[in-house]
């Protein structure tokens, strides 16, 4: 960074700025997100019947209808994820804390939605840094949630100060075990962790179906769902209803900080990243590949398990058969979007959380099914993974190759 600033000092400041922007990889990231959002709007337009009727009526009506759909879509996305600006201003003006709480509750709900993404994204990112592909976050989330529900429902009369950490740890431990198995198999037998984590996902699904139709099932409910966990295990909420913002968000931030320190400040992190970048060199340096692989998969699984625990303890307070809805797979996109850096993951998780929450509003007010965000996420992931696409579309310059894509050999994180 310092050298490029010196070298390009001569030309006009603005053109330098433009040059830098065109070369910067952050530009690609931002354009990828914008392109993804734009594509979402286009999909909303082409799948709205009213647009076709209007186009059939007249050209002008068609244009108008298109704009209406665009406007409604993005407005719903914004108000659903942040809130209605006028309401927020009015609420602050009124001075009523209850009104402020209500007006801001979409914003806080987005933070609630982004919390499991943070945990799961950190899980995948940690694996990437050590050269491991944990596509098993989904399964680890499930077993984490199962263990948490078990601790949450079976321990009665415990104080919250002990019950919450214990339930959270149970989730982390279960996820950790689920991650450890493919990690150990990879380290000891060379079995590809991608296949094994996929297999572990489905084993986790079957296990959860078994437990939720069996021992963990609430017999009073018509559908297979667990009993509600004890109140003593609920993660404290910071505001009154309907605002669901809870302590889990801060636990996730804390985890991001811990992962950052682990990876980039400690000797253990140096060892892990070296194993990820060049396992042969790591071996020659006396590093323990088996241990690094297993520990990373345990930690990765534990983080994913905490995502499950977080949802149980902070949001749902019980567990149904199909509760996760793809956090595990989305987190792959998210980790890549955040360049496998804890800070990047937090930002990407916030983006995904806001998108998801906004999409719920879109479904309600604009009639656009929530699944559209999966489409957006897939497109954003494709653009991030193949920056050449974005560079071609927006005529950006190819940057000098500094390091490889983080998934093939992790970049330095300084």
């Amino acid at each position: 960074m310092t050298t490029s600033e010196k070298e390009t000092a001569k030309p006009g400041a603005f053109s330098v700025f433009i040059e830098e922007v065109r070369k910067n990889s952050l530009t690609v990231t931002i354009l990828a997100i914008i392109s993804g959002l734009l594509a979402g709007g286009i999909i909303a337009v082409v799948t709205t019947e009213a647009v076709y009727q209007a186009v059939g009526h007249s050209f002008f009506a068609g244009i108008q209808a298109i704009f209406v759909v665009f406007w409604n879509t993005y407005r719903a996305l914004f108000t659903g994820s942040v809130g209605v600006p006028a309401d927020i201003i009015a609420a602050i003006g009124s001075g009523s804390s209850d009104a402020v709480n209500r007006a801001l509750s979409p914003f806080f709900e987005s933070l609630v939605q982004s919390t499991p993404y943070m945990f799961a994204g950190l899980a995948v990112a940690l694996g990437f840094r050590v050269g491991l592909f944990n596509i098993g976050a989904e399964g680890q989330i499930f077993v984490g949630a199962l263990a948490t529900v078990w601790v949450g429902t079976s321990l009665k009369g415990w104080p919250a100060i002990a019950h919450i950490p214990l339930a959270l740890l149970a989730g982390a431990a279960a996820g950790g075990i689920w991650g450890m198995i493919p990690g150990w198999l990879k380290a000891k037998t060379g079995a590809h962790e991608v296949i094994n984590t996929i297999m572990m996902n489905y084993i986790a699904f079957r296990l959860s179906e078994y437990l939720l139709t069996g021992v963990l099932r609430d017999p009073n409910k018509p559908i297979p769902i667990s009993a509600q966990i004890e109140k003593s295990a609920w993660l404290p909420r910071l505001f009154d209803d309907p605002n669901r913002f809870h302590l889990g968000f801060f636990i996730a931030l804390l985890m991001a900080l811990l992962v950052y320190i682990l990876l980039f400040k400690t000797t253990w992190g140096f060892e892990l990243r070296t194993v990820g970048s060049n396992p042969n060199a790591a071996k020659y340096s006396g590093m323990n590949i088996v241990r690094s692989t297993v520990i990373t998969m345990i930690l990765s699984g534990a983080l994913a398990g905490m995502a499950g625990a977080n949802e149980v303890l902070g949001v749902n307070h019980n567990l149904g058969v199909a509760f996760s809805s793809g956090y595990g797979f989305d987190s792959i996109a998210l980790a890549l979007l955040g360049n496998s850096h804890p800070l990047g993951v937090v930002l990407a998780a916030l983006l995904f959380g806001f998108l998801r929450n906004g999409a719920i509003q879109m479904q309600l007010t604009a009639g656009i099914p929530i699944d559209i965000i999966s489409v957006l996420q897939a497109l954003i992931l494709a653009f991030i993974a193949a920056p050449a696409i974005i560079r071609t579309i927006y005529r950006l310059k190819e940057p000098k190759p500094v390091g490889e894509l983080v998934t093939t050999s992790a970049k330095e994180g300084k």
Partner: protein
Amino acid sequence: MESVLELRGITKRFPGVLANDQISIDLRKGEIHALLGENGAGKTTLMNILYGLYKPDEGEIVVKGQKLDVSSPRDAINAGVGMVHQHFMLVPVFTVTENVMLGDEYLLPGGFLDRKKAARRIMEISEQYNLAVEPGAFIRDLPVGIQQRVEIIKLLFRNADILILDEPTAVLTPREVDELFKIMQKLVEQGKSIIFITHKLREVMEFADRITVIRGGKVVGTTTPGVTNQVQLASMMVGRQIELNIKKDLAKPGEVVLEVNDIKVLNARHQIAVDHVSFEVRAGEVLGIAGVQGNGQTELVRALTGLTHPVNGKISLLGSNITHANAKKIKELGTAHIPEDRQKDGLVLPYSIEDNLILNTWYESPYAKRHILQRDVILDHANSLVEKFDIRTPNALTATSSLSGGNQQKVIVAREFSRPIRMLVASQPTRGLDVGSIEYIHQRIIEKRDQGCAVLLVSTELDEVMQLSDRIAVMYRGQILAVVDAKTTTREEIGLLMAGVVPAGS
């Protein structure tokens, strides 16, 4: 004599490198034309252009009087040009027949493969040129020498009459080399023409009809073995009169540092790679391990450095038993290791020089305190080593991937030599380096020896082993056939040992 192939003014630029600069060469019918040059001189680039793998920026290729536009290997094949690559282009899980006919398959009606007809043709070729192979054998089961024959058959199968052999002797035993040259003789007798790429002077003198020397992407000159000698060729190759012998004092061997006692080591495929090997290395001496690549040296080094463990026998370092110790323990006892593949094993290429320099001390004081990396100390350490070992780089935060091969090797040497070490295991320490770097590394190794370090040098370059070693052990098929005194031995003696021939009386 008529030219079957002419390269006229071939120029090829890569970003920052002029790999071929106006190279012109002609190949006559029925001759063996050696292309001699150091690693990185541009030989392989030139041949890849001829073979259609690269496009030249300037120049033209004329085959049998006709200008040829090769844009893919297919064009070269059609023009009768064939190439045996340095790394064999064979599919291990395919049979000999399948590998040979791949791309030019014999077909039955309906598009089915005619393996029988192809096998018959292979047998014909094999009889005509004395190239014994088994058409139904799988490549993965064949020794390297036979695999090379399959490569040659591939060319003959396509009726190539211009054969390019890229460093064909690198992986062969001296006996296999002799067989290869007999085959080459047979080929030229029957009207084929051969371009033979190498950097080994002796082979060129013995087997080539004409020699073209390339240096820095340019043709230095063309000569014949009759009018030149090895010293002259060597100076053409490197551009100045080089001293073929490094200056060093007599060794003053001290106490035994490394003692290897009857060890047996398996390779990754559970085959015996090191077979009942015993030797010792003393402080202040260099023990050279000579041998053709693939005779167990790699596995021996892996066992000595704790990357694998012997199934039999005992290894002691400074009196402690390290037979089953891990790499870290052995390193902490004072062993330094220069691995044979620096990019694969010795460095983390995306890392900065700074981080590569603490690759085996990252957890030790002063680089870490209570498991937290001390960045300031690490940077100071790096800056001083960059200066001391003359690593050419903008600064210590530069990624090692952007350094030249010589400077990358200096990073490894700096890292390994900056610790207090008692034992140095150097495996192919100068492979692929320029002469300047080779001299530098050789001097450093001798310097370590003179400081009382025990040195085990493993190299497939006979010259390197003979120059640096005080004693030489020759490995053949996993065994050490003999340990000889470097002062009294001869090239011939070691060459015979490398081929598995134990001279009478030893």
